């Protein structure tokens, strides 16, 4: 089984999706291992750190991918780009529904949830950034997260958000400026007060 997985290792996401569409369960396994962590991380950030809700979104996004497999149109979009768009829409819908809830409270990490970051300073930075991201308008948050954390290119983000590349550049620039201003207020707290 592991040998079979190794044989699929070099295959693109799209090739694996086609294999799954032809009834290959091994391809689904590899796709899940590749994509679920990225989808979960992205959803967690967009949802202000709410891990439980992010897991729901991840499962829903992957379910939509499985349902799409049979009618997947080759070459039209990358699988990851398509998934990011689905996740972005699902998270935006959920954020709209909970507008009345205090976003800061939603961003608190769950009790007993271990962080993947060992270094305490990095933990503080990641938390501070998440807080600052939560205060950005939704589309700025999505654009900045995709560009600077997920590593997506501007054309990919344009495809995900359904806007022009110029609009993406504008969104990310404004988002970064807002983050820089917001985080500057926490320099002392984060130990950046002196050179």
């Amino acid at each position, binding site marked *: 089984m592991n040998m079979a997985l190794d044989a699929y290792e070099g295959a693109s996401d799209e090739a694996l999706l086609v294999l*799954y*569409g*032809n*009834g290959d*369960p091994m391809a*689904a*396994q590899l796709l*899940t*291992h590749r994509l*679920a*962590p990225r989808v*979960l*991380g992205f959803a*967690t*950030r967009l949802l202000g750190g709410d*891990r439980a809700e992010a*897991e729901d979104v*991840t*499962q829903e996004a*992957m*379910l939509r991918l*499985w*349902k799409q*497999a*049979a009618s997947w149109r080759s070459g039209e979009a990358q699988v990851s780009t398509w998934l990011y768009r689905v996740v972005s829409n699902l998270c935006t819908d959920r954020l709209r529904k909970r507008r009345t809830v205090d976003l800061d409270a939603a961003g608190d990490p769950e009790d007993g*949830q*271990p*962080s*993947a*970051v060992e270094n305490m*300073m*990095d*933990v503080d*930075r*990641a938390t*501070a*950034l*998440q807080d600052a991201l939560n205060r950005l308008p939704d589309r700025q948050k999505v654009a900045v997260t995709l560009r*600077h*954390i997920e590593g997506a290119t501007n054309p990919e983000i344009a495809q995900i958000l359904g806007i022009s590349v110029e609009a993406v550049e504008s969104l990310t620039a404004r988002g*970064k*400026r807002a*983050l*820089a*201003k917001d*985080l*500057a*207020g*926490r*320099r*002392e707290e984060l130990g*950046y*007060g*002196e*050179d």
Partner: protein
Amino acid sequence: MAKTDNQPMQDDELDLFFEAARQDVAAPTDALMAAIMADAQAHMPVVDPLPAPKAQTKGVFASIWSAIGGLPAAASLATATVAGVWIGFTQPVQLETLSGGLVLAGDYVTTDTSYALEDLAPGYLGTTLFAEDEG
């Protein structure tokens, strides 16, 4: 010089935050992975298998008929048979004319012209023939 809270962060400072966020990715739980795989199994497209070969129901004669090529082969065979019968019953004058009685000798020779071997191949018996003619 100490940076004050009024000064926005520079790109290199901000990059440290993004880097920390990139590392802050908790792995999906086993329960989530299992749920995703269960969905994948449940919604995996069903691919029609190749149709199974039909059981052999032909009889012996049908098998022979099929083995020799069916109707086209039978038609060819019938044509060849009729042609053979026709050749046997009619005397092929043209064939005898062309071959000079060499092919169908004896009773079948109907042509008035007959050729000796040296007529057809003058050199066959050697050069003496030519010597006699010249002499």
